[in-house]
């Protein structure tokens, strides 16, 4: 398996310890795996028996509140950005953090731009697939683009309040 790196707010650019599995991929024993919601809903018991830790991919059309009870205890949820202009997962993230009280890792996957990183962090994401336009140092810089903000948020860098 090719090693992929991801960016984590707490530890920077690191090797991804999670393996992404599709609907039919075999489960490596004891591994940390991310599976599509549909597979998890059908095979939860079997997956638990084989894998170490299980995380979920959620489509950005999913109503996270209706799944609240099953999502709350997961160690990782990966939300999707099919295009960087499709901002639905920003709201899913805030709902997960604020309405579901989800405390596990929240990962932004798909097409994201480095200029969205601070918004993502403030909505509750704490790990990111590498944006198409960013080298490692751009992550750090993009997260420091702003030191103040108007909106109160419980997540991400705590910025000074403007207004």
């Amino acid at each position, binding site marked *: 398996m090719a090693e992929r790196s991801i960016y984590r707010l707490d530890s920077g650019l690191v090797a991804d310890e999670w393996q992404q599995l599709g609907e039919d991929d075999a489960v490596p024993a004891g591994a940390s795996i991310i599976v599509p919601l549909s597979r998890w809903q059908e095979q939860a018991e079997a997956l638990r028996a084989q894998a170490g830790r299980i995380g979920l991919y959620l489509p950005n059309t999913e109503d996270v509140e209706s799944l609240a009870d099953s999502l709350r205890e997961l160690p990782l949820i990966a939300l999707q950005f099919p295009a960087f202009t499709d901002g639905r997962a*920003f709201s899913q993230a805030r709902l997960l953090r*604020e309405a579901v009280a989800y405390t596990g890792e929240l990962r932004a996957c798909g097409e994201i731009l480095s200029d969205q990183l601070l918004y993502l962090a403030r909505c509750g994401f704490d790990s990111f697939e590498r944006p198409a336009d960013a080298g490692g140092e751009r992550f750090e810089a993009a997260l420091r683009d*702003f030191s*103040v903000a108007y909106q109160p948020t419980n997540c991400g860098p705590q910025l000074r309040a*403007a*207004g």
Partner: protein
Amino acid sequence: MYQYSEPDQTLLNERVAQFRGQTERYLSGQLSDTQFLPLRLQNGLYVQRFAPMLRIAIPYGTLSSRQLFKLADIARDYDKGYAHFTTRTNVQLNWPKLEAVPDILAELASVQMHAIQTSGNCIRNTTTDALAGIAADEIEDPRPWCEIIRQWSTFHPEFAFLPRKFKIAVSASAVDRAATRVHDIGLKLRHDADGQTCFDVIVGGGLGRTPLLGTTIREALPWPQLLAYLEAVLRVYNRLGRRDNKYKARIKILVKETGAQSFAAMVEREFARLVDGPLTISAEKMDELRAAFARPAYRQDVDPGRLEADKAADARFALWSRHNLRPHKQPGHHAVIVSLKAPDEPPGDASVEQMQAVARLSEDYGFGEIRVMHEQNLVLPDIADDQLHAVWQELDAQGLATPNIGTISDMICCPGLDFCALANAGSIGVARDLNARLDDLDYQYDLGELRLNMSGCMNGCGHHSVGNIGILGVDKKGEEWYQISLGGSSRNDAALGDRLGAAIARDGIVDAVMQLLEVYLAQRHTEESFVETYRRIGLAPFKEAVYG
């Protein structure tokens, strides 16, 4: 007006630095066109027909003299010596160079201005009544509320990539001068039975391709919960608004397809969680913002007889006074409407000299404040009656005193095919030709209050759908044609215009408008406005006159 705090200014400076970096990465090829697009759009930068167009925000249409002087400097140094005021009370430069835009933004930031969220699929500039703080029928000054919405919506981390653009308008007077029923959200401020400020929330109105009037989904929203409720509406929209078709992506389509009642229920469910949360507005915050918009120290020694005497002595001044002044809460004062609708100029355009003159007048005779109207005129809000004649003389010398406010030649008009990459047809040329035919002012006055709105394409920047007479430019096999609608209004009697009939060729459009006017003059009852006559007699007589 509101003055930036130190953190406000820091935020703006950081934005300029960020956009400078983005522009550099784009120019050096690290960002593709597609990747740069949403970034430049959220900085108001469009790629236009001849050059990039930069749209600068004028929050709720309020400008200081210092800001207007700066806009004049920028138009002189970075553009061709003029700027265009828009129906969203913003101002557009049509000829800046892309590589100069970071410098322009830095200049703007030095006077607390920016181009943040003036385009792109995000929350745009909040608009309100240009006569805020002045109008006698005002329940409360809407600007503190607009400012708090500005702050909440600026770089909102959750709502920067919405399905489509999002526009909010606030009205706080008996007469709706903010067109609240044709906005994504319209807020109508009123006082509840206990005298407390509250808001009726209208959702799902809009112009453009599918014009719709909004529906009230919440009555008497208590003021401390205004932002929590807005956040709830935006969250429902961000999650459920259509993204498969940009022409169906505005909230109006979601509200229509869901049904206003079901939509309201979804918002209430979201709101129930947010209510009394961190977005709750405190009394201290509102006191602070209200203080920022406190009424200035008006002169108490205004000569009460002077205005009438000046009018009696100068017929041109008297004529202008009748059409271009608006009543003021403060005795002995008027609001002066500065007409950007001279017959031979593109509607809404102002030259460097004109901007400087208006800024200077606001300092010499007012309190250094200027307003932008969504009808694309400027306002000097606080002029004492005994100085009106002096102000008029200076405006007249600058070509800013055309006595036509509220008349047919005070038309709303987008830049059209002459500048805009989206346009299907020219609008400025039609405006000019129409003005040439309407050159008799008495004829215009006889027509009374008549709102003519013109857009060069169905995106509707010229608000044609809510014009008493609406003109929409369409492309027919490479030729410019024009679709007329009648009976629209954005006021309390808000209505969308009815389509008159088949589109009319460029060489026939001015004749067609003149024929409509003749029908009105022949059929009107005493004191009846164009739109009232239309509502009484219907489309048929107008149709008959134009199409025979």
